[in-house]
């Protein structure tokens, strides 16, 4: 810290902190000690740093209050209950019903032609292409899958269809279904009833 010392005050600061952290090598420690014997300001800085270090050492982590300890202990149970409630609150048919609904919507879109006419009306025309037949077959399969899921899920078919599609879309689905599928399972029967 004096004029003869090549180290700047900032350099000594680093040395002092390294000393406190126990990271100062022996040679550097000797150099610091030597400088401090000739520089009272540096010596005082080291003493104060040491005192601060001691004081901070006595500042142990505080004990968490009992109220917080109780809250933290309850976290596993509360989180499990919260997860359980989430699953329970979701209708059991929702995953399967949702899948079926997606299929139904896709089918309904397939059944509608761009101009608003349905496949059913185009079926009546003589110029029906081979690709339309393939598409109908695909439709029939997809409907079968959809109703399979609906039946498995115990979904009230008509109600769900009305929720998910408007009448314009659902009517072609039903018509197409009755045309291609003589029997589609209990859910369909329930709907018709």
């Amino acid at each position, binding site marked *: 810290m004096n004029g003869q010392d090549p180290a700047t005050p900032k350099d000594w*600061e*680093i040395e002092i*902190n390294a000393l*406190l*952290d126990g990271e100062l090598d022996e040679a550097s420690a000797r150099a610091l000690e030597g400088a401090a014997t000739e520089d009272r300001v540096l010596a005082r*800085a080291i003493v*104060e*740093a040491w*005192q*601060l*270090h001691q*004081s*901070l*050492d*006595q*500042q*142990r*982590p*505080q*004990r*968490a*209050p009992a*109220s*917080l*300890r109780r*809250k*933290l*202990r309850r*976290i*596993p149970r509360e*989180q499990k209950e919260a997860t359980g409630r989430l699953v329970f609150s979701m209708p059991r048919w929702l995953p399967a019903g949702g899948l079926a609904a997606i299929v139904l919507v896709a089918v309904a879109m397939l059944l509608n032609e761009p101009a608003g006419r349905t496949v059913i009306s185009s079926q009546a025309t003589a110029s029906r292409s081979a690709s339309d037949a393939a598409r109908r077959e695909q439709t029939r399969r997809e409907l079968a899958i959809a109703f399979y899921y609906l039946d498995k899920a115990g979904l009230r078919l008509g109600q769900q269809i009305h929720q998910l599609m408007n009448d314009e879309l659902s009517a072609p689905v039903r018509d197409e279904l009755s045309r291609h599928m003589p029997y589609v399972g209990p859910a369909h029967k329930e709907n018709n009833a």
Partner: protein
Amino acid sequence: MSRRFRQWVNEYQDQAWTLARYLLKDGAEAEDACQEAFVKLWQHQDSIDPAKIKPWLMKVTRNGCLDRLRRRKPNEEFSEQMEQDHALGPSQDTQQRELAQWLRRAIASLTEPYRSLVVLRDIQQHSYEEVAVVLELSLPQVKVYLHRARKQLREQLAEVRP
């Protein structure tokens, strides 16, 4: 899973609490911040390296505290309550008690990241590497900032000491 979590709670609740307490200077908010951090720990426990739980938790606790500080109104002040909450035991003599109180005030008056640095390194004795992870700083940055923080405290200490 619960058993492992309970072990983490037992090991780290005091440290998380101390950090939150120093940062927020408000007991109720510090409790909430700690609870939120531990809930996050519960939710993410499977994706965290078990060897890094402590720095992860401290980081989440600190970030939660900083978020709360940012949401606070500028003039809100909680330091008085902190003084009361930090009351020392009767075994400590008056001089020690005064010094400890002064030190807590001085630490609380530091700006970030100095305050977190002193709490994590000098009070909670985390390694430099852990502190670097918690504060998202490089190791040299941690050392330099800690030097500055200690120097600030030392200068304040020199003013109050005879």
